[in-house]
């Protein structure tokens, strides 16, 4: 399989007042197309930062992130926003659905940036909601859904534009065991059945076991790779 994502000599530091806080140092990583990668590590190890850099929502201090041939670390803000909208689907720990919008409207949000007309958008949204098993709850607001259902709506929103990669930051972190299992099964299905490349940050070994590849981060460095 070809390498979809290449991370080269990646470093990231944050500044707090006049203090530089290194978060990632000299990371090199390759993710194959169709992979399901779990990034593990303790709190503060830099796994979410690495995920953000790969997804193009943060900029590296040094190094490159090349996704499907595009060096996203060189893109400007507006180009990066456009790139994200068509290449990356996001799943967050706390779902981050818009409270005033229904499940249908939340899933439709990324499609508003496309040229699809209303009927085409409807078709895409219904398909995405069917994949996550929530076609019957499309007119419910987030507060009318359980945590697991909210996360499934978030996954539907992430896949509705048929992105190249899915990034998930602790997608089961706020869920009970049963709901977490459902979400992990759904992600596995997206990877195997729909051939989505998934990068998932988790500190839960049980969740990481569902991935094809596991990487460990500690103090900003990749220390171990498990297959």
């Amino acid at each position, binding site marked *: 399989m070809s390498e979809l994502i290449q991370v080269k000599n990646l470093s990231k530091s944050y500044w707090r007042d006049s203090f530089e806080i290194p978060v990632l140092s000299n990371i090199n990583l390759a993710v194959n197309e169709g992979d399901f990668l779990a990034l593990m590590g303790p709190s503060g190890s830099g796994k979410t930062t690495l995920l953000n850099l790969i997804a193009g*929502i*943060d900029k590296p201090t040094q190094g490159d992130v090349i996704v499907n041939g595009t060096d996203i670390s060189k893109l400007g803000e507006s180009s990066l*926003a456009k790139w*994200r909208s068509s290449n990356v689907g*996001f799943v967050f720990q706390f779902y*981050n659905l818009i*409270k005033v*919008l229904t499940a249908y409207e939340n899933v439709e949000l990324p499609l508003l940036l496309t040229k699809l007309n209303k009927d085409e958008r409807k078709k895409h949204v219904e398909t995405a909601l069917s994949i996550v098993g929530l076609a019957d709850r499309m007119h419910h607001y987030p507060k009318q859904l359980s945590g697991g259902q909210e996360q499934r709506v978030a996954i539907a929103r992430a896949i509705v534009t048929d992105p190249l990669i899915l990034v998930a930051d602790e997608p089961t972190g706020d869920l009970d065991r049963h709901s977490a299992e459902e979400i992990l099964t759904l992600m596995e299905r997206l990877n195997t059945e729909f051939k989505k490349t998934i990068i998932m940050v988790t500190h839960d070994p049980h969740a990481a076991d569902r991935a094809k590849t596991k990487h460990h981060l500690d103090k900003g460095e990749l220390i171990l790779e498990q297959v």
Partner: protein
Amino acid sequence: MKILKLVFKNAFRHKLRTFLTIFGIAIAVIAFGLLRTVVTAWYVGVEGSQADRLVTRHAVSFIFPLPYSYLDKINNVEGVKEVTFLNWFGGIYIDKNNFFARFAADAETILEVYPEWSLTEKEKEDFKKERNACIVGIEIAKTYGFKIGDVITLEGDIYPGRWDFVVRGIYEPKYETTDATAMVFHWDFINERMKEESPERANDIGWFAIRIDNPDDAAKVSSQVDALFENSTAETKTETERAFQQGFIAASSAIIEGMNAISFIIVGIIMLVLGNTMIMAARERTREYAVFKTLGFSGSHLVGLIMGESLVISALGGGLGLALTYPIVAFFESVIPKGWFPIFQIEPITLILAISAIIIIGLASSIFPIQRALSTKIVDGFRFVG
């Protein structure tokens, strides 16, 4: 689902806060509209001034009378088309609260100099030929139910005694700014009685109103008139009607200017109220804005969302305020004595100022939240705990 729908949904996310803000804006707009209406009503006399009309009064103050004998001399000044004269009569109609302007004037010339008082030819003739005839403005005719042929009895104060006048004409204003709340009767009628009862006050008039051929000659004609009476016992001051009216209200100008300033301070207060609401809303939605950016929404989308929400709240509050201003101004007009403000209505300029203020407030209140939303990095937005 459209962005506009999201703007409306966001605007009413905190219903109580939004409704309180809308009511706050509405009340402020009502206060603005009412104050501006009072200010414009105060200046309506100035606005109604004619460019081709001069006023000649006593040089010291218009409360001092001028001799009737000046009339012929003024008439002979080059550029003068027509001259009339008026006296403030005062008096009480039934109750002292029934206030409206009452003038004793030269019946032969008054309607030539004040053509904006529209009467039929018959009314004009009837007014001129009957010594105790009077004409009244349509507004006070409506208020007190005056009809042609009615007798209006005034209790004199400046001119003591009981005075009966017969209504021979009800004039309609030719222009929007024309005062339709005045009562005018024959100076001769008053003067004859003065000759008998107070001879020392006979042949006194209050001021001359002069119609000139060319408004551009106003300064020249004024100085020529005043030159006629230099070093006399009653020197004159001639000025344009506008200047005369402005001088008349100058005594109250500090209050009016104060009201004017307050009306604009209110606009500033509305801006702070809405600005505060928008800042709170933007702060609460820091994570959401990060989500929007993550999904690929651009800065201009966020600007549209925030500015749209601010404009929606501002427009709803402003619209409600304007809608309520009309009945409230009408209510005030009904309770204030007729004649205090000859014209008390919301002027187009007030409407334009209010609508402009509503739009500016909507835009200005969104500046800080927009700046905050745009400058917050996505990762910082997700870390934000509101």
